[in-house]
């Protein structure tokens, strides 16, 4: 089964631009409020600029702007950045924004050529390996820079790669983009053994695949408006969403195989699972890659216990303003802007949860105002999700986190991973070198958490 036969990566905005769905924004009607509080679609880096809230001051700076700056200042030396963060923290939105910033020469300098690989779209996330990624990058070059592909990739394909692949993929098309797509599709749909056969075939030509990409990158950079002094940037998004059952595969990919990507003559920005940044295995990430880990934390809406606990006014204000860009709480909600504040507090700084709470509360009504009771019910709905999902054995760990803002020393990695992955625990980092953690506010109201002895 093939989910998508198209080599074209999806329009990164995924579907309609969020702001274009509503009659106006911020929303003055409940219908528009629902359309603008969509937890599914990331913001378009250009068209949804009005909806985007500057979160630098409450997320430890604009981390991806720092990455972009670091890339520009690297003097042509390829850099590596590993990007991580909670789901719903806005990684894709910020990555797309950074791509746009690099491509448009924002902030000075020449435009930088970029290749954006959405692993979710192009690869079999249940089983990803280096060869798949390299092949997919070849496909992207064909798609977006056909001239460069024709110049440098065709000879290499004919000489080294096509024949090798043709022995293991039946009826390989003669057209190279079609052949690449067929090979990727083949890897996705086939069983493990067949995948391994194809990958083994590609493994023998990995040097050729890398050489081809480097030649293509060189050609692309030589093409105006790009600058030969600037390496090309490869962004790989959603690679971190490898299924949990594949943990051994995840670590093998990141710690063994992806190191070969350093052979690319390009800046690399790869997303990485959050837990790997904290696992013992993850400590090897920097050593192996020599790069930098950039974590996109949640918006810091509360303070550490050591700082007295309670609300962080700056973070809350940022969250409230983020919501106010989408919805006119003063017009639509019984409590006015106080509703936005309560929602921001309950969300723990998780944007997606905040949007869902607004959504659900609004849908309680045909007409405004949205009552405080509806907001409470909506929060209770998110809490009920946590209640259902929270394994009781995790509660002692959560209590420790709530008390100390860090995980117990003897906390198993898989527990830590699970708690972060499912947002029972949220990570914050605002200016300090070390992150800190807190239990999601709505988890703290769960019966399992409250009544545990």
């Amino acid at each position: 089964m093939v989910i998508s036969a198209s080599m074209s990566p999806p329009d990164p905005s995924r579907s309609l631009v969020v702001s274009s769905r509503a009659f106006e924004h911020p929303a003055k009607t409940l219908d528009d409020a629902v359309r603008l509080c969509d937890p599914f679609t990331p913001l378009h880096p250009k068209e949804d600029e009005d909806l985007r809230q500057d979160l630098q001051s409450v997320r430890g700076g604009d981390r991806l702007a720092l990455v972009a700056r670091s890339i520009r200042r690297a003097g042509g030396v390829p850099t590596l950045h590993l990007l991580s963060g909670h789901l719903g923290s806005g990684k894709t939105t910020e990555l797309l924004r950074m791509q746009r910033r690099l491509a448009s020469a924002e902030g000075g300098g020449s435009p930088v050529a970029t290749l954006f690989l959405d692993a979710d779209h192009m690869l079999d996330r249940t089983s990803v390996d280096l060869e798949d990624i390299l092949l997919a990058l070849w496909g992207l070059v064909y798609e977006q820079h056909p001239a460069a592909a024709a110049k440098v990739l065709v000879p290499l394909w004919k000489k080294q790669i096509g024949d090798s692949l043709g022995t293991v993929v039946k009826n390989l098309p003669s057209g190279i983009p079609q052949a690449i797509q067929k090979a990727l599709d083949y890897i996705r749909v086939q069983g493990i053994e067949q995948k391994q056969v194809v990958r083994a075939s590609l493994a023998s030509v990995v040097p050729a695949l890398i050489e081809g990409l480097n030649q293509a990158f060189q050609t692309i950079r030589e093409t105006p408006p790009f600058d030969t002094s600037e390496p090309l940037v490869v962004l790989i998004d959603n690679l971190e969403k490898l299924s949990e059952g594949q943990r051994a595969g995840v670590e093998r990919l990141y710690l063994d195989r992806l190191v070969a990507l350093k052979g690319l003559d390009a800046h690399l920005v790869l997303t990485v699972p959050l837990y790997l940044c904290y696992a013992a295995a993850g400590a090897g990430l920097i050593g192996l890659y020599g790069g930098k880990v950039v974590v996109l934390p949640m918006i810091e809406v509360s303070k550490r216990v050591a700082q007295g606990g309670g609300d962080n006014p700056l973070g809350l204000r940022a969250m409230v303003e983020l919501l106010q860009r989408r919805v006119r709480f003063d017009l639509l909600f019984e409590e006015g802007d106080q509703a936005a504040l309560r929602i921001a507090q309950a969300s723990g700084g998780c944007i997606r949860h905040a949007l869902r709470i607004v959504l659900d509360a609004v849908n309680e009504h045909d007409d405004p105002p949205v009552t405080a009771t509806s907001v409470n019910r909506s929060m209770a709905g998110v809490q009920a999700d946590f209640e259902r999902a929270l394994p009781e054995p995790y509660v002692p760990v959560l209590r420790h986190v709530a008390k100390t803002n860090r995980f117990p020393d003897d906390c198993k990695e898989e527990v830590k991973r699970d708690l972060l992955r499912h947002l029972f625990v949220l990570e914050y980092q605002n200016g300090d070198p070390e992150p800190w953690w807190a239990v999601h506010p709505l988890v703290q109201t769960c019966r399992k958490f409250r009544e545990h002895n």
Partner: protein
Amino acid sequence: MSEVPRAQLTRPGPLARLTEESEHRLDVLRRGMRRSKSFALFVVLASDAARAEVLWRLREWSGRDGVPELLFFSWRQDAARELDRFLAAANRESPLAGAVVPYAEVLLDAEGGRALAELNMGRDMLGRLITGPLVLVVPASRAGELARAAEDLWDVRAGTVVVEAEAAADAKADAKADAKADVDAGVDAGVEGQASHLREIEASGEVAPGALVDAWVRIGDAFFKATLYDEAIHAAKEAERLARGVGYTGGLIHALVLRAGVLETTGPFEESVRVSREALAHSRVVGMRGVESASRFILARALRRGGQSEEALQHLDAALHDLEGIDMPRERAFILGEIGDILQARGQLDDALRIQKEQLSIFERIGEDRARAMTLGRIANILQARGQLDDALHIRQQEQLPVFERLGDVRSLLVARTNLAQDLLTRNAPGDRNEAARLLRLAHAEAERLGLPEAEHIRQIQQSHNLPT
């Protein structure tokens, strides 16, 4: 049998009367579906009659009053293949306006959850393939699995809606009451009164057929526990009749399982096997692993009663396999207990003991005191068979009896006292005989008072050991 007939059909009234909260949540869902102008995932947690009612409502809403036209995927196992074909062939020039997966757990169960993994993986594409709501309907008990199997899709859902039928809400309260104080009366006038009332309600036409099915099954269960087997069979048959009439497959399966369970007690066991096989066939068609596991369990017990232990074991193994990855520890424990009993009967005492201990740990973990005490009795039986009489006695006296006394479970208590007495008579240490006689007198008196068949068995024990009755 289709639970939601696809042809134009006059709805035979509501399939379930939903709780007030559920009605409210459905209003919220409908508004959300009407207002979404782009892909929006809704997860509805509902099962049995409540699910049937939700699906009817979704059909009624489809294409009306702002809710887009909804495509309904199959409710059978081929839903997974249908979804595959949809994702592969989806025309982005003409995306779907909305869609419903009526039994989303099929996506979890079929082919190891591949379809759901594909849906999750293609999450980013869904906005182009479906421009409105996608509704996944799944039992609340499977919500956690769905969340873990399709994490990314779960994360971006627009809402989760819990829908319960009024009968289901009552059943929860009933279940709690049962856990505290099991039936200790041979005749429960209340249950008979309920059955009578139920007939009046059905005649009035006011209550949804699906809810009536569930109610008859509950009443049948109560009759069964009260050892009113004829009444239990009648209730099961009423439930079956109604369920077949409205196409409520889930209810039909429950009714068949109930009838098979009663027949397994009363005989003829061949009939129990036949009815169990029918229940299993229906549950396999529906593709719900939990229900299939329960059907296999009942069938296995019937087969074992008929001396077909080998086939029984095969079904029990399959029943365990059905539960893999599903959070149903109680059901798993009962299956283990049955396996342990078969192994014990075969003389494989070490294996039987290991399995019963596994069962015990599950009941301890989930806090099922009564079931735990029953398992302790099984363990004591094995220890006794191994010649570890003192250990068996200790378990019965110190761990098992106090639980039944505390729960007021008279029947289990008298059975436990009888077993304890027999162990004491076997050991025959000083004082054992007198104590055994005392226990048997107590047990016999209770059994006679309740009109239980155990009374005759106890009397025979007393006679065989020349003990006063």
